[in-house]
């Protein structure tokens, strides 16, 4: 590995904060004014949910074109001289790192406008475009990208494919290749399940970029165990690739220091320092340390590997945490890339669509952001892979995701994900699959990384036809080839949920497998979009109805806070009832969960509460409610315990999409506050929670759940405690 040292941060020159400047233009007899550069950048982009929530998106297409026209007239020097600041007017560490550019080349460009830069890029070949990128900050890259249309985003990215590769054990990103990160995530990090999903991916020619698992449990012991297991799978199968477990970077550093095979080190990045440090618990200094540690201790240091770091990004995280410094999502994303390039990573993976409708509402918004991100990353010299993905509570669909993937393959993305059947069993979202990766290779005539391909041909996973073209071989899509026996294979099969079969039709899953997958998705999505039958609950079961601040489903899904509070008028209409227990029924993210469970659950729960003579309020139903709604109601009614029966966020399993949770919110009594404060470390603690989840026919059936919740409520009110404090109080009893 060639040793490199990132530029010391104090040696990076950043101009002083400039006086605020407005940007004005007259377009079609109408004057448009943008109050600062951040607003100009925001308005120049297509309208996306996150930028709309932040108040940065243009009101209409004319305003957007006005912004683009203005932006294209700005010089690179102007952008250089206008460093964007955080809420305190400070230039944060991420912005500072973005100024670590090639000043010699910048000097040749600085008088050029962004419009001229765009034209120059379109007239240039890959190496020249790449050279231009070394002289650009993230803000400059975001700005020029906002001037590009879809063809241009794809065309320029395609030209940048040459030279966008990176080398670990395999070289990923060469022209003519499409690689994949095999993501064998399992809800409990079950090693047998991880084996099967890894075997499935390898049998489909996936995993040449990485065997990379997102862990369920982020402890040094667990991460080390999974790393050793992935290492064993890699060695036993002989697949030339590298491994990674995507825990927090501090955990991975501890694992490496204990001798675990941290071949590639991972971290999620953000484009503002506040998001990076407050939310991701990472600083530039820590990333520098990790980079240095990998160079001195990484297992690949003497293998010819040139790149050993792996970053994940995606538009919207800064916005979700409301720590975006007034910048739009694309600009924040480009700032991430400015940070990432400091470490010459092996992979940068973009997971736009992962967060949900609060950042990207639909297929268009998700696809467009992906195309922007891919180009921005490549322009900044990064080995970009793409993970266009979605959650069921957004309006992004499988079809839209597949269209995005085709466009990104055309643009030359280095790699995609391989999540078996696209359904991530741990993170409850939908990504690309090994089937998708192979289909894209066949459509776009691409091959896996050369080292890996040679192994896969030895295994009969791929063969060459008489014209030298690459075809699926006899062992393609057969995970059992890596198992010692039928029983061994069966043992692995029994460890993976939502594996609807391993039958294939060409490069696609068989129709039967596809139908099971898609109908499960459909039922799960329906659960989110079904209306809570409030009338049935009030008329038949005698509930009383209250309303939250979310006045529509769109608001409920895109702004979770609104479902956490009662509508102001509604709250004013309530008066304290001083009950022991108040039951609240709300849809959360699955009205179907309520419809399928409540009638069986409630009578048992009520019988249990009555057996102890508790004073219970009339059951409340609220549409568009969230977990914390219990607190607003509990405060208003002065109830000691609020039991919030709420629909869970559906994953990909049809039955589980009807899954209900019970959040038992205990309003800490005054005489318990010292103990609760001492236990939690929060002197102002007001609420403690116990949770009973997974209430559905195949999980905890409703009739049984009623009893379980009632017993927990009795324990809470008997001991005056909930959550971990209650469990700690109960432990001596259990031992006795």
């Amino acid at each position, binding site marked *: 590995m060639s040793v490199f040292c990132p530029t010391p941060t104090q040696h990076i020159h950043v101009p002083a904060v400039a006086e605020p400047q407005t940007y004005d233009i007259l377009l079609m007899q109408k004057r448009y004014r943008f109050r600062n550069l951040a607003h100009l950048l925001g308005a120049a982009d297509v309208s996306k949910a996150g930028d709309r929530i932040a108040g940065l998106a243009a009101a209409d297409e004319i305003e957007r074109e006005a912004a683009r026209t203005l932006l294209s007239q700005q010089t690179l020097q102007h952008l250089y001289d206008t460093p964007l600041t955080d809420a305190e007017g400070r230039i944060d560490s991420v912005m500072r790192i973005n100024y670590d550019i090639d000043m010699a080349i910048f000097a040749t460009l600085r008088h050029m406008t962004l419009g001229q830069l765009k034209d120059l890029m379109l007239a240039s070949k890959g190496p020249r475009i790449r050279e231009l990128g070394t002289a650009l900050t993230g803000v400059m890259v975001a700005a020029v990208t906002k001037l590009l249309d879809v063809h241009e985003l794809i065309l320029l990215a395609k030209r940048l494919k040459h030279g966008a590769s990176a080398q670990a054990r395999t070289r990923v990103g060469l022209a003519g290749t499409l690689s994949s990160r095999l993501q064998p995530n399992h809800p409990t990090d079950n090693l047998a*399940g991880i084996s099967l999903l890894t075997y499935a991916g390898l049998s489909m020619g996936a995993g040449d970029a990485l065997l990379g698992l997102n862990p369920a449990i982020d402890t040094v012991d667990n991460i080390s165990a999974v790393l050793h297991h992935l290492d064993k799978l890699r060695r036993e199968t002989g697949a030339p690739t590298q491994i990674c477990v995507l825990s927090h970077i501090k955990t991975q550093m501890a694992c490496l220091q204990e001798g675990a095979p941290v071949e590639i080190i991972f971290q999620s990045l953000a484009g503002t320092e506040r998001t990076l440090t407050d939310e991701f618990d990472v600083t530039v200094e820590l990333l520098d340390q990790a980079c240095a540690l990998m160079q001195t201790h990484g297992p690949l240091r003497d293998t010819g590997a040139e790149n050993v770091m792996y970053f994940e990004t995606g538009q919207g995280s800064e916005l979700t945490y409301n720590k975006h410094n007034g910048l739009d999502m694309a600009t924040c994303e480009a700032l991430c890339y400015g940070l990432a390039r400091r470490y010459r990573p092996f992979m940068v993976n973009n997971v736009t669509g992962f967060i949900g409708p609060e950042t990207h509402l639909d297929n268009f918004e998700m696809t467009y952001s992906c195309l922007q991100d891919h180009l921005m990353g490549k322009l900044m010299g990064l080995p970009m892979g793409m993970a266009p993905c979605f959650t069921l509570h957004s309006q992004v669909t499988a079809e839209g995701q597949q269209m995005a993937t085709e466009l990104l393959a055309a643009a030359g993305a280095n790699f995609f994900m391989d999540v078996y059947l696209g359904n991530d069993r741990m993170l409850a979202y939908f990504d690309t699959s090994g089937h998708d990766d192979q289909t894209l290779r066949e459509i776009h005539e691409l091959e896996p990384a050369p080292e890996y391909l040679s192994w896969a041909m030895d295994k009969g996973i791929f063969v060459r036809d008489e014209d030298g073209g690459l075809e699926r071989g006899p062992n393609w899509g057969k995970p059992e080839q890596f198992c010692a*026996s039928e*029983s061994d294979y069966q*043992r692995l099969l029994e460890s993976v949920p939502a594996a609807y079969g391993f039958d294939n039709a060409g490069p696609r899953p068989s129709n039967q497998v596809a139908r099971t997958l898609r109908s499960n998705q459909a039922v799960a999505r329906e659960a989110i979009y079904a209306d809570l039958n409030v009338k049935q609950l009030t008329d038949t079961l005698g509930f009383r109805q209250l309303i939250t601040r979310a006045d529509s489903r769109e608001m409920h899904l895109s702004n979770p806070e609104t479902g956490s509070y009662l509508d102001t008028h509604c709250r004013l209409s309530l008066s304290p009832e001083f009950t022991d227990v108040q039951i609240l029924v709300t849809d959360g993210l699955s009205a179907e969960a309520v419809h399928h469970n409540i009638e069986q659950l409630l009578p*048992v729960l009520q019988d*249990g509460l009555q*057996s102890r003579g508790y004073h219970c309020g009339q059951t409340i139903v609220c549409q568009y409610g969230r977990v914390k709604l219990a607190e607003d109601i509990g405060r208003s009614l002065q109830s000691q315990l609020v039991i919030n029966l709420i629909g869970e966020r559906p994953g990909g399993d049809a039955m589980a999409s009807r899954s209900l949770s019970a959040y038992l919110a205990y309003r800490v009594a005054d005489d318990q506050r010292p103990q609760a404060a001492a236990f939690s470390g929060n002197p102002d603690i007001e609420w403690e929670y116990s949770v009973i989840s997974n209430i559905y026919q195949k999980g905890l059936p409703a009739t049984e759940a009623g009893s379980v919740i009632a*017993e927990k409520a009795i324990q809470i009110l008997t001991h005056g405690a909930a959550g971990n404090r209650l469990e700690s109080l109960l432990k001596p009893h259990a031992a006795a």
Partner: protein
Amino acid sequence: MTPTRPDAVRLLGLDFGSTTSSMMVAEVSLGKHSVNGRMTYTNPVLIYRSPACFTPFKNQQIDTDALLQQLSHWMQQAQLEQYPAHTGAALITGLAARSDNARVLSQLIGERIGDALIATADDPGLESWMAFMGSCQLLSRYHHNQPVLNLDIGGGTTNLALGLSGDVQCCGCYYIGARHFRFEPGSYRLTGLSPYGRELLRQLGVREIPAVFETHLCQRIVQWMVQSLEQIVLGNEATIDDGFRQLALLNPDGPQHHASPLVTFSGGVGELIYHFLDHGSWPATTAYGDLGIDLARAIVASPILSRSLSVRPDSAGRATVLGLTLHSSDISGTSLYISNAAQLPLTDLPLLSHLSLDASQETINQVIRLAQGCQRGAAIRVRCLSSETDLPLIKRFAQRLNHARDSTCLLTQTPLVLLLENNIGKTLGNYLSNWGQRPEPLLVIDEIPDRQAQFIHVGRPLKQVIPISFFGMSQEAS
């Protein structure tokens, strides 16, 4: 032999067979099954396998002292005193179970290994079932549409179990085994003969027992055994002389014997068969001093018995002890009703009867009267269709059962255990106990599969679940 993981649970299996005895200890974790979400033992790792040693006999009886000494030695090696097993089973099987002192010995073993585990003798159904679980449970689930018939052929008996999708449907047992005729290794010079061997010679018309068996006679004996096994595989077991049958495979309550199951083998003879398939050679003549090698060769040569030899069981040798170690208990669900966990374990409870959730008051009264006669406690299986878990039915059943308890003066200290397959244990228990306010000891344990057995053993709780072991599966025991 110290635990390798913080949440480790130890399981123990002991098999004292016609020829050999062995012990295994496994370490497992308790966790949710990834697919069905039920609590289960996960990540089993065998941490101790004793060498197989000859079961000690003295004057046609098991040598109790020698055997207990052997057991102590194994337990010491596996550090079971320091890290005791949570569940498991010890079984005296095959011809050893016919020994007069087998039952006494099983009690002594039980005392030695502790009250958390079952120790029993002469339970051929349990033995067959365990051999299937140890041999081909996973394989049977892999071939989930096809029945699998496992023949566990040991020294004294062939234990049969027919299973589908990993579940045993019915069990059988015949006195067909390698060790009814014992020879000097390397020759066919007879050194011993079991009563069943003597009877077989009589049926074959051999009036004088020769000192050295000719090849022809050995072939006739082995052919008789193979033909008998073929008839069982073909579903014609009625053609076999009753005297060789301990337990018929055809279970009157179970599904009919499938015409063409996959056939797998386990036990000592099974191990020889698969060893030959892997290595292409047999041990020397009567190397083990019995007819095991001859029987294995004849099975491989039989088109009926060898038709699915390419399908390999999970484990052929020592399948019974492996089954006893890993599969001798079922794990309950996590939401149970237990009035007093300190009462556990409850050993050797008779499994009295089956009650449906809509049983009449009179039927429930009869069962409760039966339970009244069991001073140590009694278990009742409660059956309900999945559609029958609605609350009114549960409440009515609870009312009737409580009425029966109130009117029959069931000893207030006698534990009553209800076993259910459906996940409604806590709710049924709460209605039966008036939400924990009735004084009688009561356990309602759910998510336990319905098994044909006369006795159960209720283990100690572990992470909110209870292991239940079933035994007493032979028809004779009834």
